[in-house]
């Protein structure tokens, strides 16, 4: 056995190197070291957001408001874009819940409050220092990845970011999220 390893040391090392690296990566991604200062403030964001038609924003008194303007098809605006999907991500439970939009008529202008229990803040940074971002990365690839690994790679996900830490907000990728606001904790 010893002589087998001695004779084939270079081959065994060469074959083992990428496998060991992969195991280290798998271990590192699954060993979740708890963050010292994890995000606490729930974040509200929208997917498939089309601001010209569906304007969702936080008012001065901290409420969530929807302003719907019917598209002007005479000026070439797209007739019927789907309404955006509104989500609230709660870091403490790591759950994402949909916020239903109010019912309204599609051919008339609408302005109304979207019910939400807490007061909201439109600040880009939460009270605990996190920011909502659509984290996009693109890797051109190299000879090895072009020949053996699928070439260039593109990844995108909605995350909460603080310094070098990032926390994924939803399991779905490639859905550009539009930040709306932070759901502030109730003050007693």
């Amino acid at each position, binding site marked *: 056995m010893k002589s087998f390893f001695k004779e*084939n040391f*270079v*081959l065994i*090392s*060469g*074959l083992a*190197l*990428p*496998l060991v*690296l*992969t195991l280290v*990566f*798998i271990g590192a*991604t699954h060993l979740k070291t708890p963050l010292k200062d994890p995000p606490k403030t729930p974040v509200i964001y929208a997917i498939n957001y089309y601001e010209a038609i569906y304007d969702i924003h936080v008012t001065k008194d901290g409420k969530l408001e929807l302003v719907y303007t019917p598209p002007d098809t005479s000026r070439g605006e797209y007739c019927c874009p789907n309404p955006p999907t509104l989500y609230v991500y709660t870091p403490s439970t790591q759950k994402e819940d949909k916020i239903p939009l109010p019912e309204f008529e599609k051919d008339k202008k609408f302005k109304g409050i979207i019910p939400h229990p807490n007061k909201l803040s439109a600040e880009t940074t939460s009270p605990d220092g996190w920011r909502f971002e659509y984290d996009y990365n693109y*890797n*051109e*690839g*190299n*000879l*090895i*990845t072009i*020949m*053996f*690994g*699928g070439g*260039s*790679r593109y*990844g995108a996900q909605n995350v909460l970011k603080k310094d070098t830490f990032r926390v994924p907000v939803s399991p779905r990728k490639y859905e550009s999220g539009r930040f709306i606001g932070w759901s502030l904790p109730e003050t007693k």
Partner: protein
Amino acid sequence: MLTAEKKNALEHISLLARENHLTLDEIGAYLTKTELTNKNSNWLINLMAYLGAAFIFGGLGLFIAMQWDSLDSLSRVIITLGPGITTFILGMICCYDARFIRAATPLFLKAAILQPIGMFTYLGEYVDGNDQQLGAMLVFGIVAIQFLLAFAIKRQTTLLFFGFLFWNAWLGIFMDRQDIAGNDIGMSMGLSIICFAWHFDKTMHRGISPFFYLIGSIGFLWSLFDYIESSPFDILFLPAAVITMLLSTRIRSRTLLGVGTLSLIGFLGYYTDHYFKDVVGWPIALMIMGFFFLGITAFAMKMGQRIKSTQ
């Protein structure tokens, strides 16, 4: 596998080569020359055989392409995977008969092309889902195991070549699925491929080493450069290129020497552009350093000859 007689003959040849200062190139050239002066008609038979095989498989490929839309799923799988499996089995049979052993290589080549195509066709026709990477991993994994197991039995170089190629295809996709950065994949797999080529360069399968030296060294150096380009550590590429050239002199690989030299020249161009743009003294300094290295080489050769003559 080498018989005892062959091993003895090789030892004898190696001793003669060392005593008479014959290089591998000179031996290879002489063998090729004697082959060319052989005026029997074997070459015509070989040519006809290769042409016949090429026409058959060319015709099959064109037929498949023309009829593809009118074929149902089962026919598509049979017409792609079927010939792939058949040629592989024929290749293995040829390995057991010394008369047909030379036919094994083109048969395995065709199997290596047709089998993955057939398996991808099967996945496309019968399996739901849109995870193409997983499908590719399955296909390359199975073919890699198949070719490498066959190599373990018959020790055919072609089987090793394709087995390792498919293994790398599987490994690259597997590493990519673990979200490992492309440059890390490139560097680790590049080194792995160089190690593989180094090991088999010392065996009867050395014919495939130059190809893998080329892929491995370019892959490693390309990824390393991407990693450290425009960073304070970009100078580290210089020792990497030099080590590649050093390795090439140790293992006598012209492929590695070519890649190392071109990498070094390319890096000097990048470094000059980055840090010494419009500084005329820099290229002059490089040329002086180059003459200095050549001077050291001449001195080292003289010393080596003096040492040899005193022994």
